[in-house]
């Protein structure tokens, strides 16, 4: 009797973890490369969703076009944040607190603008949120579950390949390791920041697509979703992208299973409990004993940039 319930919770929790993983990767990548706690990501997620929503529902263009336009607009917003916000703050040698406040204000501003443009009615990307379902060994598996897991898996593999084998990806890792040293080798840190923001835009867009096809979105929804990304990044350890993704999966599953021992209304509290414990006990992230001496992503030798 209990086994099918446990299996169903595992499957649904695992599938739901997909968008949390994507948001966490986007957040952790900026933390790693730009060394910034980018709370402006919530604003970018809002822009991503409402751009796709507009293209699908008002322009009635196909989904792939909506996604591409969503990525383009979100990336443009990220680049504007980098060009006109963060660079200005760096030039002024502003404190970390100023960076933090700037990114936070950006997200709030975007939420208000979206509220004025789209109102406060919750909306979904497509009119229907029902997904075809099949029962496999007593477990309900929806098309959405399969899509979410596939999109996230492919994105993670693509990112790993990009970081390991593509020149731009290797530059990102070099800048993440030591920005000044990387610049001595001719790698542009500014360019690496822009690439990081562009990748974060893709992951944010994918995450909001998956979220918006399953649940209703309000202009303030991305702010709530950010909590997962922050805890995942902290729990995975600064700069450990794929550990952060694994942490997001664990968090999603713990939250799903928690309903068996606590009332559903306390599920949200589980996240804050994790945040508290991680900050107090694991400020540098949680590491399994066997992995203590290893890096999640080995940093390659910085490569001489093309002149």
């Amino acid at each position, binding site marked *: 009797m209990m086994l099918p*319930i446990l299996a*169903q919770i595992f499957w*649904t929790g695992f599938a739901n973890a997909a968008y949390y993983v994507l948001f966490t990767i986007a957040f952790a990548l900026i933390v790693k490369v730009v060394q910034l706690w980018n709370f402006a990501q919530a604003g970018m997620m809002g822009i991503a969703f409402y751009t796709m929503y507009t293209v699908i529902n008002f322009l009635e263009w196909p989904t792939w076009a909506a996604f591409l336009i969503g990525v383009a607009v979100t990336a443009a917003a990220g680049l504007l944040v980098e060009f006109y916000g963060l660079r200005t703050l760096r030039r002024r040698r502003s404190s970390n607190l100023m960076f933090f406040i700037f990114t936070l204000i950006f997200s709030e501003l975007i939420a208000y603008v979206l509220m004025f443009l789209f*109102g406060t009615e919750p909306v979904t990307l497509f009119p229907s*949120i*029902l997904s075809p379902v099949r029962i496999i060994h007593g477990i*309900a598996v929806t098309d959405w579950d399969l899509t979410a897991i596939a999109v996230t898996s492919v994105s993670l593999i693509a990112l790993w390949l990009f970081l390991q084998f593509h020149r731009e990806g290797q530059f990102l890792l070099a800048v993440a390791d030591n920005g000044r040293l990387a610049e001595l080798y001719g790698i542009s840190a500014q360019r690496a920041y822009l690439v990081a923001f562009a990748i974060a835009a893709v992951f944010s867009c994918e995450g909001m697509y998956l979220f918006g096809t399953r649940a*209703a979105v309000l202009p303030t929804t991305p702010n709530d979703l950010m909590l997962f990304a922050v805890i995942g990044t902290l729990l995975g350890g600064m700069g450990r992208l794929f550990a952060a993704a694994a942490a997001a999966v664990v968090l999603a599953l713990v939250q799903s299973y928690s309903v068996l021992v606590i009332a*559903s*209304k306390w599920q949200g509290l589980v996240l804050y409990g994790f945040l508290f414990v991680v900050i107090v006990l694991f400020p540098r992230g949680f590491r399994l004993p066997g992995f203590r001496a290893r890096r999640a992503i080995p940093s390659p030798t910085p490569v001489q940039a093309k002149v």
Partner: protein
Amino acid sequence: MSDNRPASLRRRTLLATAMAGVASTSLPAIAQDKPKLRLGVALPLTGSQALFGTDQVRAAQWGAEDINRKGGVNGQPLEMIVQDTQADPQTGINAFNHLIGVDKVPVIAVAWSSVVQATAPVATRDTTLALSIGASSTKVAHLGDYVYTTYPLANVDVTALAKYVYNTLGKRTGAVLYINNESGLEGGRVFRDVFTQLGGKIVAYEAYDPTATDFTGMLLKVRVADPEIIHIQGLTADTPQVIAQMRQLGMQQRVTSYSAGYNPQLIKQLGAAAEGFIVTSLAPGPGDNPNVAAFIERWKKEMGRAPNGLPYTQYLYDYPYIVSSIYAWLAKNNLPVSGENFRKGLVEIREFDLPMTGKLVVNPDHTVDKPVYLLTVKDGAFVPLATIS
């Protein structure tokens, strides 16, 4: 002397004045000569709730215009004065102070629970009648002598629904799923208590977090309990998600909800999975009252769309009719216009026959009696199911 008020305040005042101007300039000449009878409105014209607030103001404005077109109250036209609250308690207090201190209105229509609660002490202090039109919190009935509601409070429709489920549908076991906020807690408790008192059994009573998007664990618990009917006391955003995930987990029970579920968007989101879904409405629909059909047509003709939050606009349209009845009562009894006498008039008249929402009975305990309309989803549309008086 320079005007050092913030720009946003000046904009709000201008907007409000413009809307009030529209109301008074459209009066027929015969009524313009006589002194105007004032009524206040404090609703959000800017901010996140402006979408609903401006439509509610427009509905009240149409109500006043229609009364004036028929000669006003004993030949005297109504003049509606509007102030913006932004659905914000502090701005609401400023709006009340302006309407009472500067515009000298004896009665103010106000909505949004937090604003109603914040402005109640101002209404009581200045002995001005505040009519809450749209706030459903049961706290509204306990905000002092000068705060009344014309809108049924949260327990009215859920009580009627629980009785219908037990008595008419014959269901004996039920589950209640409610969002963990004020409206969810209160509505969920009312459904559980009424259903249990009638002899039914609540086999699952589960709250969920307002930010939750995955309800699998909670729904699996309910599936094991196997209730005959499931009542969801949620909001517009989460109710369709709960039902969608229910159906995907193979749960086919009939689902009920309250007025938050009465949303055509929900049918689009759920398709065939919405069939049989029962919701409540506290205002009659076009099939119940021909005036409502004409009202919707008027929106389409003048605004090119249906109003945002139709039931609320119906209640706001009726507001000037309540006020005009009280003004007529004051004239008949030779009483001066004051907030105190307005309150007296409301309590004395007690029963109002209103064009858009039907009969209204104001109770001494500051609650109201209104019929509850039950609707169900049939062939992809909400259709009337029953009317409970």
